[in-house]
């Protein structure tokens, strides 16, 4: 069974509101926030407040670090952006699409435009590195030639070319993490959400990964990186927003975008 339990990882419950066709992320105007979170609250049953009254706007083409201690609600916030969790209160818009108003098939369309690096990777242990990275491109029916080329490129950048045909289960955590990152980057999606992408990496590998994100960002992707790894954002010129116990704390990066705490 694909969907089970109260918070299925593959779907959000249907609602009865009128379905709206989604707008594409790529053609979204540059001067508007591509991710717009307005007073979002997430309460997990029974009463665990993971995110409380958070507002955050991320401009198109921005690279943002979402920081905060573990348990601050970073993962929950990212999950809400890619429709794995829905907010208990508040509104989340991605490219102008109110996520609570789009239907299942539209969510699929939306997800094809968002690359997500999950904190727990969610790679397939029995499939090879190559197969894992190819999945999002196969889902988009890219040509086998394009897929081969792109996978090769990503493996090269992330320094795992020699693991190409190895089963993902046989990789170290750090290598698995890089596979997860390569998969998220495969389609060079307009929006990338990375949850602790350097959590299992040494400094060298972290460097490769950040380079990849910078590259993707330069070529137009909006990137949101949730991390508590200070070394990757401390000297960065990008905006940093800090979550603390489900609320944004005062510290905001150099580029001030609408960001409301209540």
């Amino acid at each position, binding site marked *: *069974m*694909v*969907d089970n339990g109260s918070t299925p*990882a*593959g*779907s959000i419950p249907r609602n009865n509101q009128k379905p709206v066709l989604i707008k594409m992320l790529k053609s979204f105007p540059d001067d508007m926030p591509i991710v717009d979170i307005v007073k979002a609250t997430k309460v997990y049953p029974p009463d665990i407040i993971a995110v409380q009254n958070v507002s955050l706007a991320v401009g198109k083409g921005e690279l943002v670090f979402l920081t905060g201690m573990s348990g601050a609600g970073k993962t929950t916030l990212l999950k809400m952006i*890619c429709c*794995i969790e829905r907010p208990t209160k508040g509104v989340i818009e991605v490219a102008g699409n109110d996520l609570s108003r789009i239907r299942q*098939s539209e*969510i*699929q*369309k*939306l*997800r*094809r*435009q*968002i690359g*997500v690096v*999950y904190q727990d990777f*969610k*790679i*397939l*242990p029995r*499939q090879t590195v190559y197969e894992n990275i190819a*999945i*999002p491109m*196969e*889902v988009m*029916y*890219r*040509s*086998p030639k394009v897929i081969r080329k792109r996978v090769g490129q990503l493996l090269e950048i992330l320094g795992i070319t020699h693991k190409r045909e190895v089963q993902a289960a046989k990789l170290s955590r750090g290598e698995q993490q890089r596979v997860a990152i390569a*998969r998220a980057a495969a389609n060079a999606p307009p929006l990338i959400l990375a949850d602790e992408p350097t959590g299992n990496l040494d400094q060298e590998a972290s460097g490769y990964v950040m380079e990849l994100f910078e590259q993707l960002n330069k070529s137009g992707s909006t990137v949101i990186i949730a991390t508590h790894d200070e070394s990757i954002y401390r000297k960065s010129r990008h905006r940093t927003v800090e979550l603390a116990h489900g609320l944004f704390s005062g510290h905001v990066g150099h580029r001030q975008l609408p960001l409301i705490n209540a």
Partner: protein
Amino acid sequence: MGHKTYFHIKQTGRNLRHNWPTQLMTVMTISLSVLIFSFFLLIYLNIVNAGSRLGDELRLIVYLNEEVQPEARPMYENKIRDFGKVERIEFISRAEAFERLGRQLDSEKDVLADLGPDFLPPSIEVYPQRNMRNLTGLKQFSDYLTTLPSADKVQYGQSWMEKFGYFIELLRVIVILSGVLLIMATVFMVSSTIRLTVVAKEAELEVLRLVGADNKFIQTPLLIEGIMQGIIGSACGLLLLYLIFQWTTGHLSGPGFLNMLDFSFFPPKTTAIIAASSVLLCVGGSMISIRKHMRI
């Protein structure tokens, strides 16, 4: 996009590699069901065919206690035709009956010498139309014919017809039962195999959903899986039946029961219909399972 089919087939291949023992079991069950069903169907169709050929010689004989005069014949014919459509009516006089018997006995003709030409009763032979040639129809017709003037009794091979009728009836029940077996086994096996595929691939399906795979991407391979099971299963079942048929007819050639029946295999059309229905059943099984386990 030209790559869709490629990826659907690739995905199907992955599924097959994943749980081929289950797939094999399913294909074997389908073949066996198809074999059992088509075996009984083959026998049934051949017997029915043989029955209808025998039926061509079918007639009702009305024995009379006195000769029908030529001028009374139209009256008889009208009365008979009042009941229903009739292909042919023949009046047999005592003399004709005697002569016929003599022809049949041929060399042993002398046994008739002592008997006079009046020894056999006159009769009317009624050849009913094709649509009347069923047991109840004949029974009613025969009851009606008994009411003809000076009719003694009516004969049409009642007991033989009855037995044959029951036999066909029994065969039909068996064919229907094996058909039901085929339907249930196929749908059940295919849908539970797909359920197993879905369960075994839960993690993969979750990932596919997370990267935004549409329903088609996930479901088409499962559908292809079902169709392939149907094609391979029914092909194996029918091939097996054909081999059994060839072997049997080869070994039981010569003057025997089978030859008398002129036993023959399904025409291509019937074969195609059986195969197509099994494939359809498999598609049905796949759909049921997909609907149930994947919340379209």
